[in-house]
């Protein structure tokens, strides 16, 4: 019985986290992956535009694929979704709601051992 209880505890918490992460994964696939996913770009481009941009920005210090990052926090994800970056336009709440944004943050920070970050402030 004790083992069953322990098993229940072990399986319940990850399952709840998995729900948000799996919703976030679907949101990523729908909204982000066309630029930030794996795969080729237009003729002559070996990566999609967002992946190529992050490869150029970090020069291999951080993974170019957002889904492979271990340093992302929900706050950082929310900042870029709502503010955009260079040619990436921001997403409005009718496109990605606050609840969906939270799930996306959970998904993209799932590999981060310290997924809670500081509040990000706009600079422009």
């Amino acid at each position: 019985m004790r083992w069953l209880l322990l098993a229940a505890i072990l399986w319940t918490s990850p399952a709840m986290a998995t729900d948000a992460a799996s919703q976030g994964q679907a949101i990523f696939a729908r909204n982000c992956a066309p630029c930030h996913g794996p795969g080729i770009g237009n003729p002559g481009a070996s990566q999609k535009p967002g992946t190529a941009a992050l490869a150029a920005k970090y020069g291999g210090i951080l993974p170019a694929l957002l889904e492979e990052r271990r340093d992302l926090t929900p706050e950082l994800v929310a900042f870029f979704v709502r503010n955009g970056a260079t040619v990436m336009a921001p997403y409005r709440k009718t496109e990605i709601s606050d609840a969906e944004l939270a799930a996306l943050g959970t998904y993209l920070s799932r590999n981060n051992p310290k997924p809670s970050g500081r509040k990000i402030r706009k600079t422009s």
Partner: protein
Amino acid sequence: MPLPPHLSPQLWQEALTQLRAAVGPDALFTADDDVTLYRDAYSPVWGEAEERQASAAIAPNSTEQVQAVVRIANHFGIPLFPIATGRNLGYGGSASNLSGSVIVDLKRMNRIIEVDDKRHFAIVEPGVSYFDLYRYIQERGLDVWIDVPDPGWGSVMGNALDHGVGHTWSSYRDHFGSHCGLEVVLPDGEVMRTGMGAMTSAKTSGDFRYGFGPYVDGLFAQAGFGIVTRMGIHLMPRPECFLHRRVLAYRRQDIVPLVEVANKLEDAGLIGMPLYESPMFGAQFADKALRDIATAPDVWNGNAIDRYAAEKAMPVWQLGLSFYGPAEVVEAIWRHAQAQFAKAIPGARFETIETLHFPLSPQAEEAALHKVLIGVPNLNIFAIGARSATNPEPADGHLLFSPMVARSGEEVMKAQRLFTEGMREMGADFPMAYGPFTAPFTWMPRIFALTAGLPVSRSDPKVNQRSRETMRRLIELGARHGYGEYRTPPLFQDQVMATYDFNGNALRRFCETLKDAVDPKGIIAPGRGGFWPRAMRKEA
């Protein structure tokens, strides 16, 4: 955020209360952090007094809610600016023509009403993106294709109403041209349907666009005569096979016969969108000798370019040809096309780029080279302008100048020279914009666009000032030579409309007459298309 013009804070609060009641509290956005998301992300006046800023945004989820919003706006005299997905980037994004407007965000109206893969049409609401419609068709295994613009996140309806364009057959890639029937909420809140939709019992609104009487659909594109809440669009039957082949030409002057043969093939319905490029465009930035040739005053006679092409065995022009249909048919058309090009252009060479058979597996679709040519929505176009190894400090977007140029090689060369020398005289140094290797875009059927992007910045107003000044002078220069803009951000719409000046701007005056009759208070997108209701006109 600014208030709507001429509205007291008290009346504004009263209006907000009514608007909130009409759509629910979660669908009215008044907080600065929310409303700021409706700024034009590529604004060339970012943070300056001229930037168009909304007073609020509202997101109805039905035609009835749109009607309620319009009636409230009419009562209080509040200008509305409808957007579908607001992704008209480079041409204004989601920004209105008039600061203080309430953005009507139609993204939540995202129902796909119908897709018919026997009669080949779809009926969609404004919030349906190209990704959405593509997914819907794929999930159901329907036997139709969509024609997509470069960025697939835009609205099928919104793109058509902005006169947006795509990449397949001429009859599909003019997206407004392929639309069929609208449902519109008029400025007084009444709903109208056009074409066969105007007949209550008809089931053919997606088939026949005219119905009976005047064809009024054009009034709802690039104009503010109503809020479109539903649209039909013709779709292409899924072909058995796609061939992408290429013609290579090695002399500058070859653009003349290249265009003539391609025009004939396309206008006879034998090919899809011709894709003109010059390999020398990119090469000039890797080889100083070629860049020197490109910037020499005598480049326009073509001699130095032709010598370089011969020495390096590098084509001056390449033309991508798309063939859609049964395998044996498209192979036969390709053989015919090769014979025509070989006859017209001595020394022309031919390349096989891609052959695809449909339906594609997901892996084959991902591996497809140029996805927009086969109607697969994507965002790969953002590689242009995004950070990369060769562009380590990217701009924050671009402002698009898109003059319409007659579909001939002579006109292409003439316009290249005009805009290159014009920009040099302006002191505008944008090497990516114009030069002797600028190739025409063929998105819009039967016309070329010699489109150039000017950089914008969210942190450096000087960049924006330079791009704005260049844009205004390019519009003026182009118009003097008959090259009119087909689409432009709100900031330049008055100027562009003024360039359509036949008979004392009779076109604009007619639009003003209609606006005064249909929407005298300027409730729906006043200023959109470069004309205003009487009370807002500058001479008033």
